[in-house]
């Protein structure tokens, strides 16, 4: 798209409408963000369909990796919520796989003229929507299961009565800050990582164009870019894990009120 011209580090986050659509005054264009969300979902669906197709007793490579993922998330849910929490397993698993794939797919380099990689999770609109979905499930299930007893969440035990109004207020703000902190963490990690990658890779280009005497120095930012790419793969996994485990921990509050 840009040819040989070096793009700025923020350009990768630009949202480009691919198929402009409007609904009344609402812009509901099919954008590159939409496209990459769909690619994440498609990759997940294709992977799990082909991994579970044979349903062998002795799993093959693909089936093993799907089973490892399943076990990993199932252990996480059981560990954080208890056996009762397994009813939330489908949601947590979907969330984990979606975020993991979105993070990792965004790490693939763009191929000029063919594809322009986009990291959906580097936009707070996407991460905040996921976080609000999580917290809505917590609130709805919390009231559904515990009735008004769910409000005990805001009243920690062993607090002197005169401090209680203030503590309840602080707990309330703390609860409301949960989805925001979930969203900020994921988006900030992805944004920062991709900017660092782009800036480091940009050094290679500038050094290569700088003249024969300093050209060889370009090897160092190159090695740096390789190292940061490794780091980013780790971060991609870690952030998907953190998002999922924190969702579990918040769900635990709804399932076992007063047990913490």
């Amino acid at each position, binding site marked *: 798209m840009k040819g040989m011209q070096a793009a700025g580090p923020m350009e990768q986050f630009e949202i480009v409408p691919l198929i402009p659509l409007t609904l009344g005054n609402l812009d509901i264009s099919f954008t590159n963000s939409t496209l990459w969300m769909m690619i994440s979902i498609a990759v997940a669906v294709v992977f799990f369909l082909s991994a579970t197709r044979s349903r062998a007793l002795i799993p093959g490579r693909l089936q093993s990796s799907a089973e*490892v993922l399943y*076990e*990993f998330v*199932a*252990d*996480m849910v*059981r*560990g*954080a919520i*208890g056996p009762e929490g397994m009813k939330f397993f489908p949601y947590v698993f979907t969330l984990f796989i979606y975020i993991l794939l979105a993070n990792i797919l965004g790490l693939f380099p763009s191929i000029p003229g063919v594809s322009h990689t986009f990291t959906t999770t580097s936009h707070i609109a996407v991460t905040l929507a996921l976080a609000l979905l999580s917290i809505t499930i917590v609130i709805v299930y919390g009231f559904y299961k515990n009735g008004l007893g769910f409000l005990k969440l805001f009243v920690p035990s062993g607090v002197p009565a005169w401090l209680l109004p*203030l503590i309840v*207020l*602080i*707990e309330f*703000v*703390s609860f*409301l*800050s*949960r989805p*925001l*902190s*979930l969203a*900020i*963490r994921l988006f*900030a*990690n992805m944004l920062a990582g991709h900017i660092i990658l782009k800036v480091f890779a940009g050094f290679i280009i500038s050094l290569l164009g700088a003249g024969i005497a300093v050209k060889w*120095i370009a090897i*160092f930012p190159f*090695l*740096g870019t390789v*190292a*940061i790419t*490794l*780091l980013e793969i*780790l*971060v991609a996994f*870690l*952030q998907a*894990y*953190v998002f999922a*485990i*924190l969702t579990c*921990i918040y769900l*635990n509050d709804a399932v076992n009120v007063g047990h913490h």
Partner: protein
Amino acid sequence: MAHHADKQEPPSLEDFAERLDTAQRGTTDAEAAKRGQAMGQGFRLASELLAAMLVGPGLGWVVDRFAGTSPWGLLAGIFIGFAAGVMNVARAMQTPGEEFDGDNNKNGPASDGSE
């Protein structure tokens, strides 16, 4: 003393590659993994603090708008948000279940998920 420091030679260019190499060597896999975890925890705590410090004043502002108590709601919100942020950070540091960077948690599937 400052005069003496001025006279120091600028770092020579001859060992530049070596020094750069030493600096670069920090970014090996294991090192990168450790840094990734440290960065993860840093982001975690920063976002906990930041989120509460946004929600507190935001809530105060909303109260002001509807109750017409400006600016007291916002002022109270700033302090309550800060208190909630500190509480979030303290909680994130101490609750064992919320650790995501411990050794036993990192290997996820290996840990026994009974409870």
